[in-house]
């Protein structure tokens, strides 16, 4: 691939999705965009870039951006962030939100939906304790194809065996051909929406819990910082943030602090000591 084409594509990707590509990732562009070029009847990535330069097509730019996202996800990924949700976060919210009985949860880069659906299954398992509450789970992602799959709630045999306990499969899935579909009662607990993390969070409102896992790794340092600091502004000081296993706030922003002993969990830096204690980090 020509250096000026790499430059052109990586600049576009950075601007559209925040994706930071170093020149050693040329192979990634080639392996992901060649199939896209072929589908459009072009014979490779050079022709694809030429087409993009010539037409300046928004649709094509978007397809390229989508194709360059990494969408891997699985149910109850890394387990701990979901155990903490069940054992610390939910009891804390039940107490601290008892007056308004309203909780809003955001999965900020939800890909094919396993993350918000894992939370929904945890909540469903303790449904009786939440009668009369309004609990919203919102899953957003920049890429349309993954959102479509998330909405359908259809997963392969491979996908339902990575992280999903067999009891949950028996309880909440039905077999459809060689796929497994989540029950409507779980699907209806999650709302999916297309949303780019580089844009203003204002239309989304405020959240008590944000899962922003395995997406910041693709951004450069200033973008990570900026996204995290905007997230801080849309949560109360007793809100909770979860990042992926390879991500942290340390060295990036002081808006949040890690919680000792609770891997992946972060609280606003100004959280009261009672909240920190309730979160398990006393």
């Amino acid at each position, binding site marked *: 691939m020509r250096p000026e084409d790499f430059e052109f594509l990586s600049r576009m990707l950075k601007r559209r999705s925040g994706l930071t590509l170093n020149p050693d990732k040329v192979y990634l562009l080639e392996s992901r965009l060649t199939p896209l070029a072929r589908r459009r009847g072009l014979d490779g990535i050079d022709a694809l870039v030429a087409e993009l330069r010539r037409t300046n097509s928004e649709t094509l730019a978007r397809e390229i951006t989508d194709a360059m996202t990494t969408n891997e996800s*699985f149910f109850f990924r890394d*387990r701990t962030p979901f155990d903490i949700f069940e054992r610390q976060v939910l009891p804390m919210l039940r107490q601290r939100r008892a007056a308004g009985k309203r909780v809003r949860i955001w999965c900020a880069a939800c890909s094919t939906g396993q993350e918000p659906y894992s939370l929904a299954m945890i909540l469903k398992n303790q449904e009786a304790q939440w009668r009369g509450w309004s609990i919203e789970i919102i899953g957003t992602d920049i890429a349309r194809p993954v959102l479509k799959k998330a909405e359908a709630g259809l997963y392969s*045999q*491979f996908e339902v*065996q*990575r*992280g999903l*306990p*067999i*009891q949950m*499969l*028996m309880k909440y899935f*039905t*077999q459809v051909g060689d796929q497994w579909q989540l029950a409507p009662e779980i699907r209806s607990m999650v709302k999916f929406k297309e949303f780019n993390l580089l844009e203003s969070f204002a239309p989304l409102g405020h959240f008590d819990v944000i899962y922003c896992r395995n997406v910041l790794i693709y951004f450069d340092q200033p973008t990570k910082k900026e996204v995290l600091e905007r997230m801080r502004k849309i949560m109360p000081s007793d809100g909770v943030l979860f990042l992926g296993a390879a991500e942290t706030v340390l060295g990036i922003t002081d808006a949040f602090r890690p919680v000792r002993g609770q891997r992946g969990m972060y609280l606003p830096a100004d959280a009261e000591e009672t909240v920190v204690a309730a979160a398990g980090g006393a």
Partner: protein
Amino acid sequence: MKSCLVVDDSKVIRRVARRILEEMNFEIREAADGKDALESCSEKMPDVVLLDWNMPVMDGLEFLKRVRALPNVRQPIVVFCTTENDMSHIRQAMEAGADEYIMKPFDREIIEAKFSQVGLM
């Protein structure tokens, strides 16, 4: 080191499972059917059994029922690993006392996920 008894009538599958589990630091024994597996268990009870369903002589479900009926033994964790992939088989296995259920084909990732589910890692 935890021990795992791999029960499958296919030598190829046993070999694949052995390779994955040895890398996960399990000590492996093998059995080719349920009866063979019961004998192995009576010699030394493994920590976990990776169990195929359809096998000659004695199938996996029968083996599971007999193991669960044994008095005064330290019961092993039992993870089914079979091509039977419909809900009624899964239910039957879980009702008979299985701890987890793998639908073939499997790979290292699935074995690791399921073993960590039942607290083995």
